[in-house]
C-alpha cells in the first residue's frame, strides 16, 4: 500500500485539494499547502505551472501566469515538495501538470527527482495511455503512482486501457470541459462512478467544477474521493499572501461535509460492512 491508497479511508470519501505551485509566489506556497492540511485535506495536488495549460479554465490559467511571471522553476517546485514532505511525513503529495515540463529533462530524471522530493504520484493531463511509453514506466520504476484520468467521453472500449496501469487513484473528470467552470449532473456522476468501479479496484475520485460543501457531500456519497481545485485557486488569487486562513476555513467546510457524506440510508449498511471486515 502506498501513502496514496492509504489516504482513501473506507468510512468516508477522501478530500483531494489542488493549488498551483508558486502562486502567488514560491515563498507563499508552503503556508498554503499547510493550510490545506490544517483544513482536513487528505491528498495534496501540487500544480506544476505551464505556459500553455490547454485543459484549464480561467482561474487556473491565471494562477499559472502569476506563478511563471514570478519566475517559478521546476527546481522551486521540487523544493516545495521536499519541504512539505519534511513537515508532513504522512500526507500524500501528487504533482499535477502537463507533459512538456515533466519530460523536458527526460521521464527518468523527472520520476527520480519527484521520488527524491517525497512525491507519491503524478497526474499528467496530456499523456494518454496511448503515449505512455516513457512517463508511466519511469514513474512505476521509481515507485510512484501514475494517476490516470477518465472522462465522460471515455467509452467502454477505451476504459480497460485507461485503468490498466492506473494506481494511487483514478481521477474521474466529471464534465467534458475545462477546469473550474461547469458542474456535472449528480445522476451522471453516479452512473460513471459505478461504471468505473466495475473496471478498477483503485479508488475513484471525482473532480472538475466542485465548489460547495453540498456538492462535495453529494459526490462523496458515491465516490471514494472528491477533488477541489479552481475554487481554492480563486481564494489564493483573491487573498494572495493572506490566503492560508481563508483556505483552511474553506477546506474545513468541505472536509466536514465529506465526513458526513455517507450518513444517509446506506450508512448503516456501510458500517456493518466495515465491522465485518
Amino acid at each position: 500500500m502506498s501513502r496514496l491508497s492509504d489516504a482513501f479511508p473506507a468510512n468516508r470519501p477522501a478530500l483531494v485539494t489542488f493549488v498551483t505551485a508558486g502562486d502567488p509566489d514560491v515563498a507563499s506556497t508552503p503556508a498554503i499547502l499547510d493550510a490545506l492540511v490544517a483544513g482536513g485535506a487528505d491528498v495534496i495536488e501540487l500544480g506544476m505551472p505551464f505556459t500553455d495549460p490547454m485543459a484549464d479554465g480561467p482561474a487556473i490559467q491565471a494562477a499559472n501566469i502569476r506563478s511563471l511571471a514570478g519566475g517559478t522553476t521546476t527546481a522551486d517546485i521540487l523544493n516545495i515538495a521536499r519541504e512539505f514532505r519534511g513537515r508532513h511525513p504522512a500526507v500524500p503529495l501528487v504533482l499535477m501538470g502537463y507533459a512538456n515540463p515533466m519530460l523536458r529533462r527526460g521521464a527518468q530524471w523527472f520520476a527520480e527527482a519527484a521520488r527524491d522530493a517525497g512525491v507519491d504520484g503524478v497526474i499528467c493531463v496530456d499523456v494518454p495511455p496511448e503515449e505512455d511509453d516513457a512517463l508511466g514506466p519511469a514513474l512505476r520504476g521509481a515507485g510512484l503512482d501514475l494517476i490516470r484520468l477518465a472522462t465522460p467521453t471515455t467509452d467502454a472500449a477505451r476504459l480497460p486501457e485507461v485503468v490498466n496501469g492506473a494506481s494511487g487513484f483514478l481521477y474521474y473528470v466529471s464534465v467534458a470541459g475545462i477546469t473550474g467552470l461547469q458542474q456535472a449532473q449528480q445522476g451522471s456522476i453516479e452512473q460513471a462512478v459505478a461504471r468505473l468501479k466495475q473496471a478498477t479496484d483503485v479508488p475513484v475520485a471525482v473532480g472538475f467544477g466542485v465548489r460547495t460543501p453540498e456538492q462535495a457531500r453529494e459526490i462523496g456519497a458515491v465516490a471514494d474521493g472528491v477533488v477541489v481545485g479552481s475554487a481554492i485557486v480563486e481564494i489564493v488569487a483573491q487573498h494572495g499572501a493572506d490566503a492560508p486562513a481563508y483556505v483552511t476555513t474553506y477546506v474545513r467546510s468541505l472536509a466536514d461535509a465529506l465526513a458526513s457524506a455517507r450518513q444517509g440510508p446506506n450508512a448503516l449498511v456501510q458500517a456493518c460492512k466495515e465491522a465485518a471486515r
Partner: protein
Amino acid sequence: MTLTSAPAATPNSFRQQPDARGHFGDYGGRYVAETLMPLILDLERAYRAAKEDPAFQAQFDDLLEHYVGRPSPLYYAERLTDALRESAPKGMGPEIWFKRDELNHTGAHKINNCVGQILLAMRMGKTRIIAETGAGQHGVATATVCARFGLPCVIYMGAKDVERQAPNVFRMKLLGAEVRAVESGARTLKDAMNEALRDWVANVHDTFYIIGTAAGPHPYPELVRDFQSVIGREARAQMLSRTGRLPDLLVAAIGGGSNAIGLFHPFLDDADVQMLGVEAAGEGLDAKHAASLAGGFPGVLHGNKTYLLQDDDGQIAEAHSISAGLDYPGIGPEHAWLKDIGRVTYTSVTDTEALDAFQLLCRSEGIIPALEPSHAIAAVVAQSKQMRRDQVILANLCGRGDKDIFTVAEALRVAI
C-alpha cells in the same frame, strides 16, 4: 508509372509515415487530454474511411478545381532568374520556378486543407466548426468554407493578432464567422490554439476542429499533409510536362509547415530532388525568432511531440517573426523527423532578408508575395549563387501579399 503521378511508396520510402500510432519517428503522436482522445480516434477512423471512398475524393477534387481554382499555375520567373544570374558567379544562377498557390481563392494554400476538413466534418455529422488563426489566412479560409457549406464557425485569434490583422478580422466577419479574441498567455497563435482546444473539449459532440497546419494530435499532421499534397502532385506533373525533368531543389517557408510538406511530400522518394525548408529567423537566431528547428528542442505541445522553442524547464517561449503566419514556437512533426533523418535541409531567414525578397519579387516579376513565401524567396536568392545555370529551383509561392502591405509599409517606414 505515368508522368503525372508521384512515385509509388516503396519499402524504403520516405512517404510511409506516420506509423499506426501517428508517430513520425520519435515525433507526432496523440498527446491530448483524455476527453479528446476518443474524438481523435473517431476522426482517424472517419478519415481512413473517407480516404478509401472515391466519392469523397471526387468531391474534394471538384471543389479544388471549380471553387479554389486549381490546378494553380507553375510559373517560370524569367526576370528574377536573369536578375539573380547577373549577381551570381560565372556559370551560376539556376532557373527559378514558382508554384502559384497565391492565386487560389482566398489568396493562400490554406484553402486546400479547409476544403478537405470541412468535407470530413460533414461526413462525420458535425454541425459546428472551430479553428485557430494567426495572421488570419487560415481563419479566412475556414470562414470561407463554412459560408460555402452553411455551417456556423468560431475563429479563435490572439488579441494581439486581432489588432495587427484588422483586414482579415473584417473578412472573417463578412463571411459570417464569429471571431473571438484570445486574451490569455501571449495573445498570439499558440494561445489561440489553446483556446480552440478548450472549446473543443467542452463541445465534444457537435464540433469539428479544423486545424490550420500540419501539426496537432494524430491524425491532423497526416490529413493536413494529404490535403496539401495537391501542391506537390500538381507541381511534379507540371514540371515534368513543361521541362521533361524534375527540379533540383524545392524551397518553401515553414511556420507549422503545411505548405512545405504539401510541396515536399510527393517528391520525397525522388532521390535527386533536394529540399529546403525555410524558418523565420525574426530579428536573428540570437534574438527573437520563430525558428523551432534551428533554435528549439524536442518537446510536447498542442497534441504532438516536435521541436519547440522552450526554456530549460519546458516552458514555451514566445516566437517572433514579421510574418504573423510563421509566428509559432513549434513545427509540424513530419518536418522534425525529416530534419533528423536528413532528407530535408532546413535554414532560416530574418525579417530584413524577407522584406528585401518581398520587394525584389514585386519589382522583378510583378507579384506581391505574402511575407511567408518572402522567406522562401530570400532563401532562393541565397541558393542561386551556389547552383549552376542548368539547374532548377522550384519554390512555393504559398500566399499573396495584399494582407501584408500595412506591415511592410510600417517596416519600410512609409505612411500610407
